[in-house]
């Protein structure tokens, strides 16, 4: 399993988890400019921009630690591009991080992980 497959598997597990929690998927792997948002979901009035971090073991630290300030800015820019394209400015917006353990397939959902 290469890195890309690992990432895709993590995203599949995370999405399944979020759908069980009552979120609807709006867009997967949204790309604009040089930015990417893994999952864009919706629940009620709230738009969630989620970054999925897959890990097999803790050898490289927690997934949440990998969401560096630079990565955060990247996601925020991506979110802005998405809002611009879809005209969804009236929504509440939240940035989440989804940590997926590939061995146990457990998901750790960190709500409101960062802000502007």
């Amino acid at each position, binding site marked *: 399993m290469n890195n890309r497959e690992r990432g895709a598997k993590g995203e599949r597990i995370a999405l399944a988890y979020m759908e069980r929690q009552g979120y609807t998927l709006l867009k997967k792997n949204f790309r604009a400019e040089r930015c990417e948002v893994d999952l864009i979901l919706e629940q009620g009035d709230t738009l969630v921009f989620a970054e999925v971090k897959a890990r097999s073991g803790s050898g490289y630290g927690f997934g949440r630690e990998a969401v560096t300030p630079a990565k955060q800015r990247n996601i925020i820019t991506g979110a802005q591009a998405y809002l611009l394209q879809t005209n969804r*400015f009236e929504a509440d*917006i939240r940035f989440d991080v989804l940590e997926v353990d590939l061995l146990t397939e457990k998901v750790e959902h960190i709500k*409101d992980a960062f*802000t502007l």
Partner: protein
Amino acid sequence: MLAKIKSYGLMGIEGFAVSVEAYVSRGMPAYDTVGLPDAAVRESKERVRAAIRNSGFEFPVQRVTVNLAPADLRKEGSVYDLPIAIGLLAATEQIAPSPLLEECLFLGELALDGTLRGVPGILPMVIGAYGQGIRKVILPRENAAEASYIEGVEVYAAENLRQITAFLGGEPTLTKEKTRTWDSASIAYSMDFADIRGQQGAKRAAEIAAAGGHNLLLVGTPGSGKTMLARSIPSILPELTFEEALEITKIQSVAGTLRGTEGMASERPFRSPHHSASTASLIGGGTRAMPGEISLAHYGVLFLDEFPEFRKETLEALRQPMEDGVVTITRATARSTYPAQFMLVAAMNPCPCGNFGSRTAQCRCSQGQISRYLGRISGPMLDRLDLHVEMSEVGYEDIASKSRGEPSAVIRERVNKARSIQVERYKKEGILFNAQLTSRMTGNFCILDEGAERLLQKAFASLHLSARAYTRILKVSRTIADLEGSEKILAHHVAEAVQYRSLESKYWGDTRR
């Protein structure tokens, strides 16, 4: 949603109303604090976020703007944590609208767990807010004591955020603090005038200085008791009045030295900074223009031991506040005016080795050394020291004598009497004691009889007195007359006052004139 909460800010010991506006809107989640916040105010975001979450509320995942109005005045410190938290909770409708939200003044720092912490400067803030019509204050328990001396303000002291939100929701979680009445407690002094052997002249001068708030210079050989005398002076200072206590407390509150006390100053301050003190520490300063030793000694004693050892520019910087009784500290980002009506007690040796003029020891200093040493005290500074006293070694009979001197309590009685005469006389002038008289006022209140007039005229010529020294002699004469209960200033009052100027020609005469 928008919420407005009342709070208060300080500039020096004067305050200004601050309106904390919290606005929560849809959009990218962000948190901005505007309205010239300093670092501590900007950091409030993290404290407020944790405190809100740990008190069982939700921190808004929305676009949050906190504005501290007026936007052009600098906001400092952690006092805005509480009003910001309350504002956010109101703006997100986690607490129901209540008239209390608009009526109350909110002050206090939040700990991460939602506990309230005390902040400096509460007393001047509450006094200022009262003047602007605010009658209810919610603040940390730690600050309750100082605020509850202000009559007409309902003070509610809280332990944590949860108590306050419940109170705003109509629950009786907070009770009104009892208004405290102030009285100058009888203080046990560690030093007493009865323990000072001999030195009658110096004791008398200290009594006059205490009665009129005059400055005192003690010159004497090492071991003659200068320091001991100075440290005993608090025990003969007149009782504090409520107005004086209020001003002293205001300054201490701003300087943050009030914590853990009864809330209100009950004794006059006695400050004795070491002679290595910097100008800023003495006069006041720092980026936030904080009060210095001279303001902390307001209505009390500033004791400068080893007077000539202080840096020259530090001493010269004392001159203007000594004359005006206030000092204005100006920095790039702050400007504050603090009262500094202190009684300066300065002690010094007559020469570097200390033995010049001694009856028992030989002075080893050269003439040049002595005049250089004495020359560190400038003429204008000497002018401002009203009473100069020489203290010589105490003889064996005095040290060994079993009889104790007059106790401080007796002297304080006389000082109190003289002080109350002054308070009564200057009721309309807005001053409290003789040292505060302006030269215009001396014309009205320091009436000399004919003999006194003549004496002063002679002294003026023979002692080469300056105009300032002249007014200061008048004021000291006024105090001596008050100690005697005489409304008129008589010849012997002036004679005594002039005599306290004679050291100048003895020590400084040939070096200066």
